């Protein structure tokens, strides 16, 4: 059953499209791991300029990268597992394809 499902997913390119989207997301999440602490720090600085100075706003923190790092690793794991399952081993040819065409034509003529 899993082989038929795998065959359908690979042959219909659904697997390629899904894995392509996930790979794009993985790449951007990887960049976000480094960009999000800076982005959060800048936005907090902007917020501090608009609010009364009595409010205490935390400064630069690497904790902001944690959600993106978790998402990056989870997505990468899912992507690699799916890639390994779907594309590392080539699909077996279906038995109907191995029958020569001339033989099929002969059978049909009978």
């Amino acid at each position, binding site marked *: 059953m899993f082989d038929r499902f795998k065959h359908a997913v690979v042959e219909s390119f659904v697997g390629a499209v899904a894995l392509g989207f996930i790979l794009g997301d993985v790449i951007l999440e990887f960049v976000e791991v480094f960009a999000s602490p800076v982005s959060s720090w800048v936005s907090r600085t902007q917020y501090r300029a608009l609010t009364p100075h009595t409010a205490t706003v935390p400064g630069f923190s690497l904790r902001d990268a944690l959600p993106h790092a978790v998402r990056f690793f989870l997505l990468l794991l899912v992507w690699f597992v799916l890639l390994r399952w779907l594309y590392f081993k*080539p699909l077996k*040819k279906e038995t109907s394809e191995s029958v020569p065409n001339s033989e099929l034509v002969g059978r049909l003529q009978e």
Partner: protein
Amino acid sequence: MSFGWNPTTCDNAHVKPTLREILAESHISAVTIAVLLLWSFDSAFRAIAATWGPFFRVAEYLATAVAIRDIPSLGPFIPEDRIILFVTFSYLFSGFVSLVSAWLLARWVYGDGPLRSLSRYRRIAGRNHV
């Protein structure tokens, strides 16, 4: 562009494919390049849309200055424009990152730029599926 390994058959199953070959032959890299290019265009349009408000106010300020032939008492910028500028910069950064990622992936997998790789890929994939 053919790497000698086809995921849909087992004609050459004894050859162990590399990750680059798998990405190229399974069409995953082509989809990823297209998606990253689309996301970079999307970010660029969002950046343009975000700057529309300040741009409109500057145009209004200049039109008022021409109409009254003097400097208007109210300036074109408001304090919130700093946030708009930051948002615009975020979108531009995101678009730039997507574009660079697409370019790096295309160079690694196909040895060419993203648009040229996709057009070459379209010709080869179209020929194989007709």
